[in-house]
């Protein structure tokens, strides 16, 4: 009724190829953006920022990064945790080495450094594929965590091996360190998240994205039609690494403030982000957000419902939480193997015909 193309005339190619061709979708998108930038910062407190919004935004960036690699280019990676650690430690070294430079630049540089490291570990992808590549990236995960634990230069020789983010400001407002206001941390991450999503969206529907998808769907055919697998695969690794590095830097500097590599960036982080991508939907930017929301918000929601709402013992709630989240993952993947993004797509198709489907 209200969700259809009819009557929404496009008179230029630019209009024709926009991300949200349906007016209702566009409005909804602008509404979400306005709410996120202009409403949420005024109503949130410490709890909402630290337990809900920051993890959601940061994991979304990581999921977008991994989705480019796994979902768009078809290269399986289990090294996300290690690459996030590269972003975090790069950011830490930059923050402590060049305290006069803005944190914004540090985080982007940290993304760049991670892109380089990711590219390096992407080199085996030129010779090996599938499960074998997954194992090779797993080696990256273990190597990087081991290195950050072992080489004390990375944590400035501190006795505990922990890295702690010093206080930094953007335009006079603290964004890292203990004195950060919740809205500042939220807006800082939101800006990065929106910029990354826009960038990723536009990359994936341009030539680069089409090359990645060609490689994903059939690499030999792609090579025959003129896609250079070396460039396509390595660029996917580098760009994916850039996003993951930014996520790692934000995770350390803004969200946690102090991290320990084995605990914060262990193998379970790699799996968590991979699950986000799979549950959200491979090859979809919206899916990255949906997957991150599902795996970040659901445990918090369950905890608050079971412990806060129903007053159950915390251990019982924690165990049930694992079971419910696990069960839902299985259920979702059986009902819709292509993830939450596919559910959303189907819903949109249905909505187009509603209320007269015949």
């Amino acid at each position, binding site marked *: 009724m209200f969700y259809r193309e009819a009557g929404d005339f496009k008179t230029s190619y630019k209009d024709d190829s926009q991300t949200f061709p349906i007016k209702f979708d566009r409005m909804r998108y602008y509404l979400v953006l306005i709410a996120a930038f202009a409403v949420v910062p005024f109503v949130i407190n410490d709890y909402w920022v630290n*337990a809900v919004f920051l993890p959601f935004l940061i994991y979304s960036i990581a999921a977008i990064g991994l989705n480019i690699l796994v979902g768009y280019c078809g290269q399986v990676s289990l090294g996300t945790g290690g690459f996030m650690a590269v972003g975090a430690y790069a950011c830490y070294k930059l923050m402590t080495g060049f305290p006069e430079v803005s944190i914004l630049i540090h985080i982007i540089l940290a993304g760049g450094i991670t892109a380089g490291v990711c590219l390096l570990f992407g080199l085996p992808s030129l010779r090996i594929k599938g499960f074998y590549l997954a194992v090779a990236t797993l080696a990256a995960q273990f190597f990087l965590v081991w290195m950050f634990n072992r080489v004390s230069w990375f944590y400035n020789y501190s006795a*505990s*091996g922990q890295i702690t983010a010093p206080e930094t400001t953007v335009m006079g407002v603290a964004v890292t360190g203990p004195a950060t206001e919740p809205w500042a941390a939220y807006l800082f991450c939101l800006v990065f998240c929106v910029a990354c999503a826009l960038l990723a969206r536009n990359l994936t529907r341009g030539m680069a994205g089409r090359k990645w998808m060609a490689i994903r769907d059939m690499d030999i055919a792609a090579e025959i039609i003129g896609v250079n697998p070396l460039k396509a695969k390595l660029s996917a690794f580098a760009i994916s690494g850039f996003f993951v590095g930014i996520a790692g830097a934000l995770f350390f500097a803004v969200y946690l403030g102090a991290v320990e590599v084995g605990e914060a960036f262990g193998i379970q982080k790699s799996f968590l982000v991979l699950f986000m991508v799979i549950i959200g939907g491979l090859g979809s930017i919206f899916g990255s957000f949906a997957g991150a929301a599902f795996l970040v918000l659901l445990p918090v929601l369950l905890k608050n419902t079971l412990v806060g709402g129903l007053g159950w013992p915390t*251990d019982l709630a924690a165990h049930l939480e694992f079971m419910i989240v696990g069960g839902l993952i299985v259920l979702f993947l059986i009902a819709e193997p292509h993830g939450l993004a596919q559910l959303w797509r189907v819903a949109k198709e249905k909505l187009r015909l509603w209320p007269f489907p015949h």
Partner: protein
Amino acid sequence: MKMKLFGAAMAAVMAAGPALADLKIVDTSYRTGPYAANGIPFSDGYQDYFTLLNERDGGIGGEMVNLVECETGYNTEKGVECYEATKGDDSLVYQPLSTGITYQLIPKATADGIPLHTMGYGRTSAKNGKVFEWVFNYPANYWDGASHAITHILNENNGDISGKTIALVYHNSAYGKEPIRTLEELSKKHGFNLTLLPVDHPGQEQKSQWLQIRREQPDNVIMWGWGVMNQVAIQEAVNIRYPMENFIGIWWSGSENDVKAAGDRANGYKALTFHNLGSDYPIYADIQKYVVDAGKAAGAGDQVGTVLYNRGMYAAMLAAEAIKTAQEIHGTSAITPAMMRDGMENLSMTEEKMAALGLPNFGPEFDVSCENHGGNGFGAVSQWNAEAGEFVLITDYYQSDQEVIQALVAEDSQAFAAENGIEMRCQ
């Protein structure tokens, strides 16, 4: 879908209920995950002591204790979530029982003005109250522990351990790395060789480390382990027939859970402690009567009297004593976190106090002051008796090497102060 979740979560938070004007104590426990075996008894002891005060005495100074539990799973992200969820309504003190979460919370709690008590763990240099206003780690810290172990080895070798080899098997994290600096200093001072053997989280795989110990045969092994790592290490030590009396664990590696799995051959394993063991104290009769028999025990109620239960109870007792001190100083029973901090800073544990509480000779005597947030660094050595199934104290409380440790504390805390632009207090 996102919006729906937010709405539902909001409703759930609202439904969590209004807080009452009580003394709010948060227990950030972990009853799940690889460290649960150690987290459960500590949390049970912590909660049962406050339950006892509520049931027997009607709270502390007439104010009931409102105990809020939050499950962290020993995970820093969940720990932060717990802290943010519970810090409102004047939470008096946090006892995170995790060095990783402690590092997270030190800046946050300092900014929010909530005291942190990291009893025998956390950041050692927080002992320097001039720099760390809101953090306390009395009665002993990791560097004290490292020194206790070395002193014990010294005493056994008639004061001479030069040329001997001591291996440190440690959890490869902030926690396990803490003692290294002290041990390095001590090795310079006493002339022993130090071998470092890191074990990665969670510590189920230690074959290569123990193979190295078997090959090199160090004279002593010191362990900094937690959770499942302890059990595995002690089992491996038994497997290579390492002499157990030369194997000393830090206080977090000395509970019944850690040694029982290894059977009789774990007999003789030593562990440090900063409080007394067993259940031969008058207070246990009260706990039995008011808490366990009344069906109000935390958890399954089967941990009473174990090492970590005692430690949790000791932590709760120190918190309760700090509350009493704060109530005396400020002349009000409903104290705020800032008053709680004053209470902790002026805490003085004496033998008379402990005896009056039904815990005679339970811990060392110590005083906290503005400069010294870490007590006097007394500890003792306990030994596992497999036949009786209990740890027994084999030494008196003795002080750590203050000369070495004070210098290290001053150095590390001053570096922290310089990094974070903190002005020295207590001038």
